[in-house]
């Protein structure tokens, strides 16, 4: 890439060449300035501040008082914090495998490119166009006690009268299912991209050797899909633990209830900050969330031996 520009510059006198290089550098900095500054101020700085604020007590009017590790001590002794942490992990443990299976399943179902499958893909993906606020409202309506369409369906197939969002033992599961239903179209698309990258010849060779479809799925598709799987598992885990989508879903469907059974850590952080103005305490929990996300990322990198798949 250097050759072209220097050869062009080379046609000019030596004195100009020097300034050309400097001019290019200055232009480069000016071009990235707006985005670099914006990302620094609105993402980088808050990230640093999150840790900083966690050592202060901040009131609703914005005055700061240094309190050392008091917010972390409070976190340690707050049973609700531990409950929401557990709920978050249970949510992630349910959501991530379900998204993997449904995403991959749908992708396999519609992977042949033909007119019928193009329409089917669009139908699976369509919910992604709608906001989670709307999605949550519709699901809330579908599972209204006794009268909702899904509640009636459950009763009709002999499950009895289920209170999908009223029963603390079921509510989180209901929220998870709504989340899976919403997100699976996105992961289907990601898996379709991964499936496309697998050379067709492998399947033809396997077929000639008399391999069953199950065998070629097991020995060709899954191993070659590992980079996509890694991406899907990492992204869906981060989304489950700290995603805005999880927040939207819970905020609209249950507000964290009943009896805090669906209060995720992100929901609890939000309530502490914007309901009780405990910004310092909320920041301390957000700092823990960052650590949790880092641990998740490191876990996936270690589990896949450094995110490398080429040695397979």
């Amino acid at each position: 890439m250097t050759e072209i520009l220097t050869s062009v510059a080379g046609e000019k006198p030596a004195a100009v060449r020097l300034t050309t290089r400097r001019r290019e550098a200055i232009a480069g900095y000016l071009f990235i300035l707006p985005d670099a500054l914006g990302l620094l101020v609105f993402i980088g700085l808050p990230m640093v501040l999150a840790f900083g604020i966690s050592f202060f007590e901040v009131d609703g009017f914005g005055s700061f008082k240094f309190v050392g590790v008091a917010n972390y001590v409070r976190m340690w002794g707050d049973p609700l914090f531990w409950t929401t942490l557990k709920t978050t992990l249970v949510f992630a443990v349910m959501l991530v495998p379900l998204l993997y299976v449904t995403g991959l399943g749908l992708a396999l179902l519609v992977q042949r490119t033909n007119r019928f499958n193009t329409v089917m893909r669009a139908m699976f993906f369509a919910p992604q166009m709608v906001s989670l606020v709307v999605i949550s409202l519709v699901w809330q309506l579908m599972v209204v006690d006794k009268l909702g369409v899904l509640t009636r369906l459950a009763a009709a197939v002999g499950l009895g009268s289920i209170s999908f969002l009223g029963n603390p033992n079921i509510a989180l599961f209901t929220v998870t299912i709504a989340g899976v239903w919403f997100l699976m179209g996105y992961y289907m698309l990601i898996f379709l991209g991964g499936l496309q990258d697998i050379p067709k010849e492998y399947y033809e060779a396997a077929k000639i050797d008399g391999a069953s479809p199950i065998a070629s799925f097991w020995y060709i598709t899954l191993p070659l899909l590992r980079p996509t799987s890694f991406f899907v598992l990492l992204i869906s885990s981060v989304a489950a633990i700290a995603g805005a989508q999880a927040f939207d879903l819970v905020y609209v469907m249950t507000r964290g209830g009943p009896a805090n059974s669906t209060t995720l850590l992100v929901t609890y952080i939000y309530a502490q900050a914007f309901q009780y103005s405990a910004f310092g305490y909320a920041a301390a929990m957000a700092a823990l969330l960052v650590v949790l996300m880092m641990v998740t990322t490191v876990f996936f990198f270690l589990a896949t031996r450094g995110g490398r798949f080429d040695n397979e």
Partner: protein
Amino acid sequence: MSDVVLNDPAPQTGRQLTLVRGVWMLVTLVLALMAIFPLLYMLSIAIKAPTEVFKPNLIPAAPTPGNFLYVLTEVPFWRYLLNTFIVSAVVTVVALFFHTMAGYALARLRFPGREAIFLAMFSTLLVSLPVIIVPLFILVRALGMLNSYGGLIVPAIFNAFGIFLLRQYYLSLPRELEEAAVIDGAGYWRIYWWVILPLSRPIIAALAILFFLANWNSFLWPLTVASDPNLWVVQVAIANFKSQYAASWNYTMAASTIVALPMLVLFLVFQRQIMDSIKTSGLK
């Protein structure tokens, strides 16, 4: 696009093949209908009279536009739609302007620290909004931007996703296209404006749709930064609408339909572009 033959269980006869295909397609169709059922259900309730809401029929006995009229006249819904449109449009335009500039510089111009800056920008993709919402709120409050269009718009502009995609796109463009301009002695700004931007039309169109969509549907930040009802966007409005008209599901679903419909229409028109750009950009 390569078709993978994996799912063809080695058929013995043509008839068996047709049968397997038929069952396969039927299963797919049923699942696809289940996938869009909640959206159809939303439409159905939106045109039902209040007394009919919980009747099991999907197609209303007496369809009525009354719910839509109510939402659009009794509630300042036009205002919310206008707010959402302004915020989404401004964020999209400004973000595309900034991101094409940054993407061009990161792909083409040489300056010390370029790779480090790119990596730093890229790493912000791992930061999710709930993690930084508290400090971001405090920051925006300190800047005096609470309850303002500025507060709704400015923090939403900066997103490394678009920068990353545009950089990739510019790296794939042949350099020869700019060379002529360089030889003519054009400055970098002129190259960007007259050569790079016109070449970016397809990716700008795809990103414009994605950005507009993301901002039209965003909820958490507008909820946090604008408590003033005059600045509510539609998502915040319908979330509040629900608590206000708890029992009137027909109104809530009509409002939801108004909010969802523009995006579903956008999807019908640009389905291919939207799905292709997400499939290839899924950061594979």
